[in-house]
């Protein structure tokens, strides 16, 4: 698994690529946590991942908690139906901000 990171309008856009499962979750975790240390405005784009397991969900939640504690913002974008159903199934769509794309997410960063 690979994690890409880019800056757009002061927002760090993180794009995990491939499978986020138990064996790759640590790579994903290290990447998002480092990004959160540098910038409190983070968007994660899910358009390049095939699969996310509960270990991957946990990383997203940890990031959400961390940013909430530091008054930062996390928005999840570009989610394919299959990935969205994983978030919906576990109920996490209720506590995480999910937007169709980056343009829709932008206003949420204030």
């Amino acid at each position, binding site marked *: 698994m690979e994690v890409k990171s880019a800056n757009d309008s002061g927002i760090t856009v993180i794009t995990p690529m491939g499978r986020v499962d*138990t*064996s790759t979750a640590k790579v994903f975790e290290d990447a998002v946590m480092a990004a959160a240390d540098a910038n409190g405005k983070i968007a994660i784009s899910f358009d390049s991942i095939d699969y996310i397991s509960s*270990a991957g969900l946990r990383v997203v939640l940890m990031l959400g908690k961390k940013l909430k504690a530091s008054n930062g913002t996390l928005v999840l974008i570009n989610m394919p139906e299959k990935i969205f159903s994983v978030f919906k*199934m*576990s109920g*996490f769509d209720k506590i995480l901000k999910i937007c169709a794309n980056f343009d829709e997410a932008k206003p949420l960063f204030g």
Partner: protein
Amino acid sequence: MATSTKILVLDDEKDTEDLFLQKFRHQITEEAYEFAFATSQEEVQKHFEIETFDIFISDINVAGMDGINFISQLRKSYPLMRTIVISAYGDINTLRAVMRCGAHDFVIKPIDFNDLLDTVRKTTKIVASMKQMEATTKKLSAISDELDVSAKLQRSILPGNIVKSGSIELFADTIPAAEVGGDFYDYFWLSERKLGIVMADVSGKNVSAAMFATIAKTLIKSFSRIYASPAECFKNVNITLCAENVTTMFVTAMYGIIDTEKNEITYTNAGHLPIAVIISGQDPCFLECDPGMALGIFEEVEFIDHTHCFSPGETILMYTDGVPEAADPDGAEYDFERFAAVLAKNAKASPNALTQELIKSIRQFANGAPQSDDITTLCVKYRTRITPNVV
């Protein structure tokens, strides 16, 4: 932190000590080497009573022929220590014998100090890599110990896997992945006519997941006696888990209470996969329910109770994502279609037989690909209206 290499030198000539201290003075000042000296086997023993050494340099004449045994003995007691013998030209046979019994290198007398320096340097490198190897081995064995502990912990929290009582026949099973995950199932009689069933999956692996699973399982079972409604039970389990949870672990879970008098199951969901319903002659379906939210994340979650009425001979199945997400060598998933097909084909089978057929089908699909997640199932066949005779 780099530690100095500890070297013990055995030689009966007092000059040797001065010579070593003089020649190695830079390394001693830089604390690369730390020397100790002995002039007899007895003194060597005394040194070893106090500390261990990385390198043992011994004059072959002091060690002597019985010194061969001495070196061999030391080697057995301190397998990580390297031995260098110092020998005169004439002693080639003794030297050969000493090398055979476990000395690692030698230096010829009169000592060429550049040669000695080289030999010690080379040996130090070997010692360092051996130490590293030992540390790695220890780490690996600690990890495998941990895996072992979590496997035991995971097994120990599961109840037996078969219940046959009146209208209910239950079979539950778990096949742990190579790395132990946090799946668990549970069932418990709440009264003579009510059976609680639980299926859950903790995010994460190994000891931490197994411990979280143990806590969650205990809470669900305890709260099930206090709160008659599954939703109320989960609400309170969730609040308790959130309060204690510093690791951001969570557990998805489904909890149902089968009422054998009313022929129904009341269930609630905490972010888990829906219950499958299998009725002979019909397509299997999955019980609609509010997803709720995985337990341990967010305190203010409301859960909702749903009720489903049993048809005679109906089978229900609770499972974890290890079932639909089992992958073949190309990474394709088993998926709900294959899952539903196997359930339909085995609608009349006993819970045990249905579970075995399901596992067989998953194994065939996986085609040797390593199992990346636990596969856990709990299957109940509901036969008639007869009240169970279990207390």
